[in-house]
């Protein structure tokens, strides 16, 4: 593996490094406040590797939720992963032995990097996806563990640092907007989600949003075809 290529991958993942250290750190702190130590922080970071999913798990642990409600609540929060899989089925098709790991490690942030960025010279697409996944995973576990150890002893105020991930998605959104002349999917994505958030509330809006997006995109494909043949 070329050093230069890996450097580029590292540079691409820098925003995620920042975001994950703080977001994972926040999770670790929360966990320690509820009385769960480094062992829990490490293994939850390693095996769940899902930001909002893990924050949710902390409250499920704290309230000693039933396994059924754990499953349903986790599904509601993480259902968006279904979409990532659907749009990467073809890209990951021939990823070989690394494929199960790449699928396991598919987070919001990894997804936006691998769908938006081009791999550096001398590195294949799937290799790029793999390294992004692995680095992001390492950052995340480090964040969870560090937060759990340091707890709330940190002297500086980091309020608002979680915005780094929002900012990441906004830049990706803008880049996609510039690089594509067909803005319909982007508009459908924003409007469907806003609409469903208003109707269904912040607990369960993701699944109806995804359904609406899938329907509208499929319909707009048909009309696009008809325009083509007209």
């Amino acid at each position, binding site marked *: 593996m070329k050093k230069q290529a890996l450097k580029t991958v590292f540079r691409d993942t820098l*925003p995620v490094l920042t975001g994950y250290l703080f977001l994972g750190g926040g999770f670790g702190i929360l966990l320690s406040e509820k009385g*769960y130590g480094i062992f829990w922080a490490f*293994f*939850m970071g390693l*095996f*769940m590797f899902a930001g909002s*999913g*893990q924050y949710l*798990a902390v409250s*499920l*642990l704290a309230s000693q*939720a039933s*396994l059924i409600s*754990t*499953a349903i609540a*986790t*599904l509601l929060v*993480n259902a*968006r*992963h*279904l*979409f*990532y*899989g*659907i*749009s*990467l*089925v*073809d*890209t990951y*098709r021939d990823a070989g032995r690394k494929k199960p790991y790449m*699928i*396991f490690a598919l987070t*919001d942030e990894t997804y936006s990097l691998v*769908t938006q960025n081009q791999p550096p010279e001398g590195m294949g697409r799937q290799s790029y996806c793999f390294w992004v996944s692995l680095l992001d995973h390492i950052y995340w576990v480090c964040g969870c563990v560090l937060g759990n150890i340091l707890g709330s002893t940190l002297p500086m105020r980091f*309020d*608002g640092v979680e*915005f780094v991930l*929002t*900012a990441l*998605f*906004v*830049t*990706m959104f*803008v*880049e996609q907007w*510039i690089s*594509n002349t067909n803005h319909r999917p*982007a508009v*459908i*994505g*924003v409007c469907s*989600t806003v609409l469903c*958030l208003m109707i269904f509330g912040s607990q369960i809006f*993701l699944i109806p949003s995804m359904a609406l*997006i*899938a329907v509208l*995109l*499929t319909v707009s*494909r048909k009309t696009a075809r008809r325009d083509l043949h007209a």
Partner: protein
Amino acid sequence: MHNVWIVVVAALVTMATRFLPFIIFGRGKKTPDIILYLGKVLPYAIMGMLVVYCMKDVAFLAYPYGIPELLGCVVVAALQLWKRSSLLSIGVGTVFYMVLVQLVF
């Protein structure tokens, strides 16, 4: 022990959401047409969905009315349109937002 089961179930459900599409649509030799199409357009829709998702807990009807979040997004988007450097937009935007929520609002 129940604690361990909660984590196991949460981890398994999370994995299921990631593996399911590959299991359903990745089986055959060729990826179905509709999935190829969705694969092309979904990233654009999803990025919009994620931006909104990040705002899901912002109270737009109470002070400060989501102003820090909206201003932060405007700064990030404007910088990105101007300089096209993701690290710059993300770095400046995040610091700007932190100043807003810690010192202004």
